């Protein structure tokens, strides 16, 4: 089971701050997580996205394994 977190406008759009999903595939990546999220949440934004796996910045090719926490984030706007 993978825990997926949504922030900012993504949480507003999906209507939730987190989701759980199962990745059957061996050698899954953040890209697979995003595909699954797009299947589940209709109209999930295309716009620029940032990713983190277990609180470290990641990209679409970063590996994801069972038990990981994957964050899908809009561009940061702190400061």
């Amino acid at each position: 089971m993978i825990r997926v977190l949504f922030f900012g406008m993504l949480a507003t759009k999906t209507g939730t701050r987190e989701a759980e999903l199962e990745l059957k595939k061996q050698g899954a990546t953040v890209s697979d997580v995003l595909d699954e999220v797009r299947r589940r949440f209709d109209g999930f934004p295309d716009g620029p996205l940032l990713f983190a796996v277990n609180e470290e910045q990641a990209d679409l090719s970063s590996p994801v394994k069972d038990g990981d926490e994957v964050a899908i984030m809009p561009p940061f706007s702190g400061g």
Partner: protein
Amino acid sequence: MSDEVRIQEEDFSIEEEVRRLRASSKRIGAVVTFLGTARDFSEGKTIEAIEFEQYAGMALKALKQLRQATLERFDVVDVRIVHRVSTMKPGEQIVLIAVASEHRKEAFEACSWCIDTLKETVPLWKKEITPEGESWVVPHP
């Protein structure tokens, strides 16, 4: 409360942060601070309040990495960073970056780089509350 890097709801005191920063060395000849404050007007809209969401855990970690990167990249003595995450009205303090160095050039460069890089690397999101409703801020590229 004396940590060099903090994310907190409550307000902070510039004087207090600069005092702590300067306590680290008498070699310090220059302190440059950047204070970000909430404006009442942004891109044509009246702002009633702003609110920050953070990816707790990752945000503080990213802020600590930012402080470390600033210390490694510039010839500075010390750096402190405080970012608030509560709901803030126009005029309130949002973020403070304070940099101490022996000479002023390095402190200016490091402080400016530090706030630019904070905006790019720290998972914080700003929401603006206007008379017409709420909207998430989309940063300019």
